[in-house]
């Protein structure tokens, strides 16, 4: 790896809030070190613009929500070696996938835009994997800088990064945080949510709202039941699952079930 050419890296943006790109822009001195280790060929927010260049690693922020984006993604996939999605929007559609749950996109368009005919968007905001092969998904809204750097480092070593799939609870306990569900009755999503953030919310005395998406083996049915036991109304339970990762199973289904959207399973 020493005197070979530096790996080429691109950071692309789709529909998003730009927050995950900050995982790079907030790196501080590591950003400059990173720029020594790799050649950043495309990263519009930081300067270099070269969207169609061939790269070894492409990071993608944002979900696909317009025909243009679908086409752009196709080109990026064709030009990229290892493709990594960063953040909730790219991995599950993110918060804007809430629009997928109702057939209301056009209705909303009319409510917000005086001239809705100017707006050209797809009915759904969807994850990158629905349109292109993805080699690694980094979850989190926003993605964690530590995870992004670990992924870069692993790829520089020529190995796939380790995926973190455990539940937030395990990390919460490693921090010796007092469980907010047991000690305060908060409807914490930690038991079904993927680790990676460092259990920030419980450590700040509040319930996790699942910004890292579903963990492996998430038992949403049992947790939804427990939330009812804590006094949450069915719609409130549904909103717990239909939030940042409403587009990702088993959250989509758990929310639907709580809201009684699936006929037969409705309460």
């Amino acid at each position: 790896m020493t005197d070979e050419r530096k790996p080429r890296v691109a950071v692309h943006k789709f529909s998003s809030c730009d927050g995950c790109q900050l995982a790079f822009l907030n790196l501080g001195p590591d950003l400059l070190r990173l720029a020594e280790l790799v050649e950043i060929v495309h990263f519009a927010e930081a300067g270099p613009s070269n969207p169609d260049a061939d790269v070894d690693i492409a990071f993608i922020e944002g979900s696909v929500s317009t025909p243009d984006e679908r086409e752009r993604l196709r080109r990026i996939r064709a030009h990229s070696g290892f493709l990594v999605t960063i953040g909730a929007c790219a991995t599950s559609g993110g918060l804007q996938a809430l629009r997928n749950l109702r057939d209301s996109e056009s209705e909303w368009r009319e409510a917000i835009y005086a001239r809705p005919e100017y707006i050209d968007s797809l009915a759904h905001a969807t994850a990158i994997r629905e349109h292109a092969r993805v080699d690694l998904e980094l979850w989190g809204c926003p993605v964690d800088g530590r995870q992004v750097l670990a992924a870069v480092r692993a790829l520089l070593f020529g190995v796939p990064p380790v995926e973190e799939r455990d539940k937030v609870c395990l990390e919460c306990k490693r921090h010796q945080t007092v469980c907010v569900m047991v000690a305060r009755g908060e409807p914490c999503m930690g038991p079904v949510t993927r680790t990676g953030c460092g259990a920030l919310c419980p450590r700040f005395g509040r319930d996790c709202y699942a910004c890292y998406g579903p963990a492996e083996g998430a038992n949403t049915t049992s947790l939804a039941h427990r939330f009812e036991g804590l006094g949450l109304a069915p719609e409130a339970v549904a909103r717990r699952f239909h939030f940042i990762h409403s587009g990702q199973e088993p959250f989509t289904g758990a929310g639907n079930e709580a809201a009684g959207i699936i006929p037969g399973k409705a309460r």
Partner: protein
Amino acid sequence: MTDPYLPREAEILERVDEAGSIFSLRLALTDPRARADYAFAPGQFNMVYLFGVGEVPISVVRLRGEDADFAHTIRPVGRVTRAMAELRAGDRLGIRGPFGRGWPLELAEGGDVVVITGGLGCAPAVTVVHHVLANRERFGRLVIMQGVKHSDDLIWAEQYARWREAPDTRVLLAADQARPGWTGQQGLITTLFDQAEFDRGRATVMMCGPEPMMVASARRLVDDGVEAGRIWLSMERNMQCAAGHCGHCQFGPRFVCRDGPVFHYPEVAGLLGVRGF
């Protein structure tokens, strides 16, 4: 007190490409004192550390040449082992070990030795064959049985051919599915047992490979009159520390890293093959 977690540096003296993608690394510890102290028994394993990537358990073998302290034969399957496949002579690794309990080679002396392996090559068993062949006079007949899913999966055909030529040695191969021209048996490994000639009362059986294969073989051997107490097998479980602390390798009450990886069949018979253990 020595720190059981601290690896020691080893240099790759030679890299040998074996069959398929399998490769071997012949290694020497770089610290002379560590070298002098290092001794292993066939069936034991090392924790092998690739800088910045991770650590994996790999059986220790000896491979030609006096210069190396030991060798590892590795099949690239995942993160760490695939990255190890890129290593060349002169590269460095971290080594902890050897760990665990090896094969009961002394106990086996004086009787027949049956080696049963399955799947894609089996480093721990190769050491047994080498040991028996190197100390031929101390053992009776040597029977080597290897089963594969498909005849194309058989690797090291030349090695089996070589062993076949060794004195008082029988090599039997079986494939569940065979391509035309396959000279071995077609079927599960247990179909070889009728052809295998060895003293059911005094032979020592050593196995490694997929657990269903080991369960089937052990049960059949016991039915055939082999005493369960003369059957040994090598197991694999996730291992992180190799010191009996991390808990990952537990198999019922056993810690595979320190109570095994080679087990006496009666020790593990109860749970072997039970889903979830």
